[in-house]
């Protein structure tokens, strides 16, 4: 019965070719190969987001008058609504962490080298999209914290010269953060960003299939002397089952976090109330938030905030275009590792300072 179904499908779809290709696919196995799992982990968490997000869409209402109440309804009245909502928030945080881990591991293992430069660039854009997903989603429960955090966050865009005002109006759907902002960010969060992300993920996966997994230079150079150092395992079923193992652990983690540390509703947003003390964005933006606090008002006559935002923008652009100017010798790779380590340390320290509540 199952075989007849398979035969029927194989006559029509290139299933056999697909399975054949996957059967021949191998994955390098070395001391760093544990980092290979983070790409798939990010994809798995993205899948969870799409699934739980679609479920939330059945009950959520994207207007200032109803958003908070609809989330309250989901969490209080819909069976397992509390679970779906908390999983969505926790998984968002885990996805950002996983994407960042994936980014740094690819950087330090130099997997951006040609021919994988397009994979790298599409991945970088996906990382920025992930942060955009987080930013747009944060406002949707329409509580005090997220309302004011969105106001502060969009204010920063105003420091961009020339087009700053336009960018702010574009993001807010108007001059201030209002119900229009909510509807607009909602549209980005559930339609526009997912559309772009799907395309890029498709491209990213296609390229990964095309070029296979990259082997780090240190392993490659050792293999030049002794070919037996590069060992591989088949993708099907070995790597895939290990992937499944990791995904199942994360699933258990999500269930535990959502049940034992459910996300709170907060207080409904009131634009006329004073901003609650200690407003800050989600943890993955804290390093930028804290850096802006430390930057002096003017640096050599230029607006300090503008300079900091410009620097961050330049760093992001540099990261996206990295493969185009990265050298291919040992020396340049060491420089890149140094830059990456410093960036990681900087972001970690800034995040820690922000959590500590440090004021400059």
């Amino acid at each position, binding site marked *: 019965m199952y075989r007849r179904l398979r035969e029927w499908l194989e006559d029509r779809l290139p299933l056999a070719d697909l399975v054949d290709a996957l059967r021949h696919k191998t994955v390098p196995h070395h001391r760093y190969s544990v980092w290979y799992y983070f790409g798939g982990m990010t994809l798995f968490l993205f899948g969870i987001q799409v699934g739980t997000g679609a479920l939330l869409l059945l009950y959520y209402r994207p207007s200032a008058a109803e958003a908070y109440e609809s989330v309250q309804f989901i*969490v209080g009245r819909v069976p397992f609504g*509390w679970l779906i909502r908390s999983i969505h928030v926790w998984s968002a945080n885990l996805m950002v962490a996983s994407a960042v881990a994936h980014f740094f591991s690819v950087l330090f293992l130099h997997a951006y080298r040609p021919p994988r430069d397009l994979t790298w660039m599409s991945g970088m854009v996906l990382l920025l999209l992930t942060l955009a997903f987080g930013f747009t989603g944060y406002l949707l429960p329409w509580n005090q914290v997220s309302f004011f955090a969105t106001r502060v966050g969009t204010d920063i865009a105003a420091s961009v010269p020339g087009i700053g005002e336009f960018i702010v109006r574009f993001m807010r759907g108007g001059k201030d953060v209002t119900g229009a902002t909510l509807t607009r960010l909602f549209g980005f969060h559930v339609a526009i960003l997912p559309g772009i992300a799907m395309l890029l993920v498709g491209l990213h996966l296609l390229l990964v299939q095309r070029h296979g997994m990259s082997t780090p230079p240190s392993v490659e150079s050792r293999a030049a002397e002794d070919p037996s150092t*590069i060992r591989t395992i088949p993708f099907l079923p*070995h790597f895939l*089952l290990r992937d*499944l193992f990791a995904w*199942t652990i994360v699933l258990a983690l999500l269930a535990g976090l959502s049940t034992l540390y459910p996300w*709170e509703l907060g207080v409904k947003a009131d634009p006329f109330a004073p901003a609650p003390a200690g407003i800050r964005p989600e943890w993955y933006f804290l390093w930028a938030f804290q850096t802006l606090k430390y930057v002096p008002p003017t640096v050599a006559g230029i607006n300090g905030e503008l300079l900091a935002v410009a620097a961050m923008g330049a760093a992001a652009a540099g990261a996206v275009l990295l493969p185009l100017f990265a050298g291919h010798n040992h020396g340049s790779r060491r420089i890149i590792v140094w830059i990456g380590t410093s960036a990681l340390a900087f972001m970690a320290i800034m995040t820690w300072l922000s959590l500590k509540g440090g004021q400059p």
Partner: protein
Amino acid sequence: MTRTAAVRLAALAVAAALWPCRSPAQITVDGATAAFRDDVHEAGGFTCASCHKVDAARQPRYDAMPRPSIAPMCARCHGDAAYMRKFAPQVRIDQYSQYLTSTHGKRMAAGEVRVATCIDCHGAHGVLRVSDPRSPVAPANVAATCGRCHADPARMTPFRRMDNPPADWAVSVHAAALLKRGDTSAPTCNSCHGSHGATPPGVTDVVNVCAQCHVREAQLFRASPKKDIFDALGQAECLACHSNHRIESPSDSFIGLGKGAVCAECHDETGESAATIRTMRGDLDRLSAGLSSADAVLTRAERAGMLVDEGRAALRDAREHQVQTRVLVHSFAAQPFGEAARLGIGSASRAQEDGEAAMRELQVRRRGLAVATLAILAFLVTLWLKIRRLPLGPQDSTRA
């Protein structure tokens, strides 16, 4: 020294001698002129000469008036209905006749000048409307104005009066309502004593004064056995338990027969009232305990992320009943006090039940989590075994 200066100095001396009540009346001509700019009389077209006698032969001199003549002088206009109609048709014209009935007025009429007259409260040259927050007789400022004399032992002792009422009032719930919350419905000195006819209410009249706002308590008290007893004893109502100026938040501990309870000041263990008192106190305590226990469990549930709207509504209901129960204390009888307490305890236990249901639901979730985690763990263990037993381990890449 010039003549004008000498005159001014004399005026100062006269003022110092004749004005023991240091009023805001400005002593110097310049000061008075400056203050008069804000005065409502100035806006009405009055001048210095309207009140002060002027010696036509010399430069206008503004003598300080003898104190007993001030009130009749003000009353010349303020007691004339036809005249006042020209300026403020609704303003009252009985202030002077009220003043004559007051303790201040009676003493002033008998020749005692060390009591208050118009300018001591309203000011002399910068008279503002009562609704102006800068006015010394604006509701928030009345206690301070009365307190200028009534809180000063030097002024009160000659009259054998206490000087503590203003300080007592300042720590009362009424002062907190008026001064901290800005609730202008809260009483200050003149609300109970009257302003122009200021006299302490008589012992049997206190309940009428409090009843202006505390209607229900007064109704209950008047219908209770205590009214006749207090009248017969000459015992001041309301203030026997609540004090008159230092009215602090009453508490359930007022009711009881133990040390420190207010009832115990007259009642003891013997007598039929003892049983009623004990029952009332028991009901109040049970109600209070029910409320705080329900609040605790609801807060725990909310902190854990559960929604307990119905519980909060029931708790609100229970608090309403607690307020009613406490009011019904003033009937000094077992019913309908007991009924109100019973309803309150019922609502509180409904709230408690809702909170406990939420906590139980939390446990259900955690048990569900445990089950799911066990299934996942079993799956992981089996999967790991399978991975280990897979036929091809890591291969040399040289072997295709």
